[in-house]
């Protein structure tokens, strides 16, 4: 490629191709070139990732696994290994950071990079993009796609267009030609509801939208959304690449195979989720200041409750006690519950955070027990040591199955085909 090809472009959006599924294929080379689905196999299991071979049959993420298998009966279904994906993700993000400090991960498998300060040694943004793609393939054996543009929003659309295993540069003068033929649903912030509204107004493409006065859009969609979409439709996206802020929260949730109304079962589940969450905090070197729970009822009504701790913690037992108290305070009378979740929020760095010590705390207290369990888990596998209440469970704490481990992503909107997974923090 010649010089000047990426003139005016400094933002890269790098997106792993079928990330979880690709990592699985790397681990099981015999599956290369075949349809592979990563997802929960149970009653309510859903697809979290699928190879392009499977997508050809219409399989996509967030689809019930049962339906995916009807579409593509030859597919291999694998349960998923979040720990492995996190590890690969960490390596990839580390590679990005070796190019520029301005790396903003959106989830395990995608990130924005601002390479305006990367210097000339690697060439312009397009050349850096190709270089990254080659390095990721060399080091991880998986492919990724890169969008190169002057703004985050266009870069992200470009990487989607480049998939799989491609690179697309959209220079500022080309933005309108690139953008305007796209369907309105491609715009950042347009979900199914807004899309329906826009279609009712006869606005099918981004170009249609761009030629409606901003005032009209604001009347139809509200002031903020209206002006936001108007700006995007003309390629204006002032958001900057914000490097890797400390992670704001981490957590786990579990959808029950069938709705549960037994408080004892809920308590046990909260304990499991709290233990998993605490494990993530400890491996990431975080302490949580706030604990929150999420409860989704059989009718999908969802509530969250949170409490700020006197003293930040990474101890599963303390997360559990708070989560349980929050749950009990709801005063539910055998309501049927579909999902519960536990989150650790307002995280602080454990090493740099001052820590209020407790009077009379045993030198080898609960925290030390949990740290020992972490070590055992590293050696003998997740769940090697766990609370006795959880012994009967077949699930392995700390190694969530894909249906249950859906930590909240920092991405404002998750593209279909991409599981919603938090950024690496371990």
């Amino acid at each position: 490629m010649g010089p000047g090809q990426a003139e005016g472009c400094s933002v890269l959006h790098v997106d792993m191709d079928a990330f979880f599924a690709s990592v699985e294929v790397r681990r099981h080379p015999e599956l290369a070139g075949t349809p592979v689905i990563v997802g929960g196999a149970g009653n309510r299991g859903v697809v979290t990732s699928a190879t392009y071979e499977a997508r050809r049959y219409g399989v996509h993420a967030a689809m019930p696994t049962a339906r995916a298998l009807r579409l593509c009966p030859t597919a291999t279904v694998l349960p998923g290994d979040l720990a492995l994906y996190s590890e690969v993700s960490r390596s990839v993000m580390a590679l990005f950071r070796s190019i520029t400090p301005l790396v903003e991960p959106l989830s395990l498998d995608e990130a924005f990079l601002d390479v305006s300060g990367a210097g000339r040694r690697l060439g312009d943004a397009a050349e850096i993009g190709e270089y990254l793609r080659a390095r990721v393939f060399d080091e991880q054996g998986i492919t990724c796609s890169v969008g190169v543009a002057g703004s985050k929003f266009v870069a992200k659309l470009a990487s989607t267009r480049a998939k799989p295993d491609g690179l697309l540069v959209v220079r500022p003068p080309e933005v309108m030609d690139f953008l305007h033929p796209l369907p309105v649903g491609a715009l950042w912030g347009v979900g199914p509801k807004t899309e329906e509204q826009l279609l009712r107004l006869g606005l099918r493409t981004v170009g249609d939208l761009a030629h409606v006065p901003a005032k009209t859009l604001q009347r139809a969609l509200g002031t903020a959304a209206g002006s936001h979409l108007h700006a995007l439709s003309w390629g204006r996206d002032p958001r900057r690449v914000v490097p890797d802020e400390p992670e704001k929260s981490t957590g786990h949730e579990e959808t029950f195979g069938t709705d549960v109304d037994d408080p004892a079962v809920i308590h046990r589940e909260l304990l499991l989720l709290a233990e998993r969450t605490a494990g993530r905090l400890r491996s990431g070197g975080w302490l949580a200041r706030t604990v929150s729970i999420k409860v989704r009822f059989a009718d999908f009504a969802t509530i969250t409750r949170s409490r700020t701790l006197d003293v930040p913690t990474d101890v599963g037992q303390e997360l559990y006690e708070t989560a349980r108290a929050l749950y009990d305070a709801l005063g539910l009378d055998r309501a049927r519950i579909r999902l519960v979740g536990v989150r650790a929020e307002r995280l602080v760095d454990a090493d740099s955070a001052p820590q209020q010590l407790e009077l009379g705390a045993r030198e080898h207290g609960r925290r030390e027990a949990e740290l020992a369990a972490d070590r055992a888990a590293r050696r003998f596998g997740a769940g090697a040591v766990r609370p006795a209440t959880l012994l009967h469970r077949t699930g392995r704490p700390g190694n969530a199955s894909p249906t249950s481990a859906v930590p909240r992503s920092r991405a404002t909107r998750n593209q279909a085909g991409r599981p919603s997974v938090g950024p690496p923090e371990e």
Partner: protein
Amino acid sequence: MKFRVAREVLADAVAWTARSLPPRPSVPVLAGILLEVDGNQLSVSGFDYEVSARAEVDVQATESGRALVPGRLLAEITRALPPHPVEITAEGPRLALVCGNARFSLPTLPVEDYPSLPSMPSSAGLVDSDVFAEAVGQVAVAAGRDDTLPMLTGVRLEIEDDLITLAATDRYRLAVREFAWRPETPGVSAAVLVPARTLAEAAKTLTSGPEIVLSLSSGSSGEGILGLSGKDRQTTTRLLDAEFVKYRAIMPNDSNSHASLPVGLFTDAAKRVALVAERGTPLRCEFTPGQVTLHAGGSDEEGQAEERCDVEFDGEPLTIGFNPTFLLDGLAAVHTERARIDFTSPLKPAVLSGVEEPAADDGKPAGPAERTGSYRYLIMPVRLPG
């Protein structure tokens, strides 16, 4: 029911009783204050199954009887009345209140639905009301406020013959105070856990007479209650049914260094420096011979502050972090001009205690019977990063 009463007297009694009314009553009648006239005595009572309060007032009654009135409303009205005698008359389902030119007619609540107040347990002994108020105030400050850990929301009250020990902790600090009392039965021994908020409120407001009668029923006869009777006022509270931590084991036996500091100056300095300490960040105290340097803040997004204060310090220089609120609570509770802090290490509890001024002027040695020097306030430090 019909009576006449001085406005101030009525307002005080109603306000005191209204304090213990539940903010969100589980049953509507519990929001009421019960007025009962018998002879020339009016009793003003409130009860929420946990705490009962009853104030007695002398009135000029022309007709005995009782009525249950919305408590908060009555408290607001009596507080706002002009300075004239008040005349209260029950008129069927309503209560008429006349004071000067002001005239109120209040709805009443069904008095037959109101639960009877627990009877006062038999007297266990007498405490000096001022000593009791001070001791409870000094200790209750360390009690926890998190209702999910009930054992930490109480004040432990231990009776051992003629000595009472109060203790409270929220896991991060522990306050202990002893004082003498006059038990009914010599050699008596008991230990109960009293809700801290209720106890502190009661002790503070029962100081109009010189003494308080302490009564206790625990264990065998159903749920334990503590009764406190001052002049014309008595209150009961249900005891907490929880184990208290074995706090005596936490008290350090010896120290490696100690500081003696002027409470007022040190408190002012700590308050100033703590202004920049965000929630959860510590006050960093560097003790060196002759002075302490206080620091707070320091990261890029927050302010920074530093102040030196002259103190006597004996031992190896020491840097220790404290939650500023915990430190200030303790300093406010010692009630002496100078205080002493004993240190073992930066990660072990520091012990704050009052220092008795040598009574140079009157030459009278500080009497051990007063035991005012028994207050101990342990603070667990904050582990400083780095």
